[in-house]
């Protein structure tokens, strides 16, 4: 791994995840709806790829496809290879050896992603017990370490609480800690800071940046906020209507966008004019 600052090429070049010709369709009464229309995307170890686009562009569908979390009505075609292993068509039991352990997910809304009836410590340690076969005591120890790593003050006290007792920023940090429990190589994050206030968003982003630097995990970050992508991503993809319109090095995308849509997206980003 290289330094904490994203943007420096934090990759050793090996392909972690390879999406080829990924298509996703839903049969509806009104006809076939195409959520993903042929996506080709490669994610290398340790890098952060940002995917931006407006609502309905297929950003979330992309993440859910990778994890095999689509509803039964979904028809999926193409290929999703994780370190050479084809994930499409794997049985749930086989897929479960990958998700949670190798690929983890941070959802947008932690309140609906966390189990409301389980204490934080139990939800976190379950990950290590199921995926790594740790004993309860060892798993709880790791959970406390991860809570500390995401800068939760008084981790021992917070660990005894239920999700509804925590603030939004705290819950999102718990989600990130949970994603990291099994030491994944790839973290998928769906709008991880959208529900947060700017000051708390800044905290969570710096936690994400710090953890990526320490763990060496790759990050596939879906967001509508180009400001977040500018801060974190090595490469950026722009999605529209289920297509990846443009994929480029972060700086290149911001400074020389190729597609007219990317240019209009960049032009509509609100910028704060502050003295240098």
């Amino acid at each position, binding site marked *: 791994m290289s330094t904490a*600052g*994203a*943007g420096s090429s934090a990759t050793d070049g090996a392909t972690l995840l390879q999406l080829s010709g990924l298509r996703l369709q839903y049969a509806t009464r009104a006809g076939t709806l195409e959520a993903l229309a042929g996506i080709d995307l490669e994610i290398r170890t340790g890098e952060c790829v940002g995917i931006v686009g*407006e*609502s309905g562009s297929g950003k979330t569908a992309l993440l859910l496809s990778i994890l095999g979390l689509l509803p039964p009505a979904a028809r999926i075609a193409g290929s999703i290879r994780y370190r050479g292993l084809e994930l499409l068509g794997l049985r749930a039991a086989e897929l479960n050896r990958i998700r949670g352990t190798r690929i983890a997910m941070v959802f947008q809304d932690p309140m609906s992603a966390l189990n409301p009836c389980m204490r934080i410590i139990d939800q976190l340690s379950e990950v290590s017990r199921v995926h790594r076969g740790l004993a309860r005591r060892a798993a709880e120890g790791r959970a406390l370490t991860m809570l500390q790593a995401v800068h939760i*003050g008084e981790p021992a006290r917070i660990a005894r609480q239920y999700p509804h007792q925590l*603030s*939004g*920023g*705290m819950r999102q940090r718990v989600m990130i800690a949970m994603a990291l429990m099994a030491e994944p190589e790839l973290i998928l994050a769906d709008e991880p800071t959208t529900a947060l*206030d*700017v*000051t*708390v*968003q*800044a*905290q969570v*982003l*710096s936690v994400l940046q710090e953890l990526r630097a320490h763990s060496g995990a790759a990050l596939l970050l879906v967001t*509508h*906020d*180009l*400001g*977040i992508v*500018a*801060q974190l991503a090595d490469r950026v993809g722009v999605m529209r209507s289920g297509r990846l319109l443009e994929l480029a090095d*972060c*700086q290149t995308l*911001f400074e020389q966008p190729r597609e007219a849509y990317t240019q*209009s*997206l*960049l032009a*509509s*980003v*609100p*910028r*704060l*004019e*502050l*003295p240098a």
Partner: protein
Amino acid sequence: MSRNPYRTSATALSVRALAVSYAVRHAGRSVRLRALEGVGFDLGPAETLGIVGESGSGKSSLARALLRLIPVEAGSVRLGDADLLALRGAALRQVRARLQMVFQDGIAALDPRQRVRDALEEPLAVLRPELTPLERQARVRAMLARVGLEAAHLERFPHELSGGQAQRIGIARALVVEPGVLICDEPLSSLDVSIRAQITTLLRTLRDQSGLSMIFISHDLPAVQQLCDRVLVLYLGRIMEIAACDSLFRAAQHPYTRALLQSVPVPDPRAARARRIVPLAGEIPSSLSPPSGCVFRTRCPYAVARCAEEAPALRRLGESEVACHRAGEI
């Protein structure tokens, strides 16, 4: 501001020492949650005042209190010559035609079973009963054109509208009765970036055309910078700072305002990575047990003993009014 030909010295809305509290159950007992305390400001004719702050800072309570949608505990609100808090019944309804609101979620703010036509005619029927049906329809069509929609939209139901269209209808519904003051409570937050820019431009155009006074509540600081003449910063229901928009963004005096501005992501990879920001620690405390003295002190990097003992009053400093013991020396 020079860009604003309608601005005079009179005030459109005048708020003094406003306090709002809610009765909530906490640990089995009924307690008062103080959502706003000692909030006061003036809104000039054709002026736009931005209100910023994190969730829980009291932004929406302020909007609702001004419209009398929630009870006010203390203070006064004057709309021109009318004492808003003293009015009841028909008199209050009369005044409400002069003070209208645009809500956060455009689709949720509309009645799902009401066509756009009816949603726009209803406020006229209630608040401008002197108009004939023909006059009403003419006003609705004219208003629809002003917000950039077509007559075909009149027959639609809310679920047939996009988020941006629904917000345009929300704006049309508020402005069709020709209020003097418009309160916008997070009008952009449910919209995509490109639509946000359109709605911001629309609000600016409508304001400039009609000399409307506006309160623009938002956590979208770049939009506030584009639209507002002055900005008020709230934290835990108290005013931290009020200043002209350009001086607030150029030289914020309050440590909370500075932290807020620093936290906004910069959509430029070089600049974003060059700057070294230290995120503000912790989160906004509960309004049930606000810190003693200055409510911001628990997160403030400059807090000293005095900050825990004595709540700072708003005072003039540079071009701001600021509630901080240490502003000016930090």
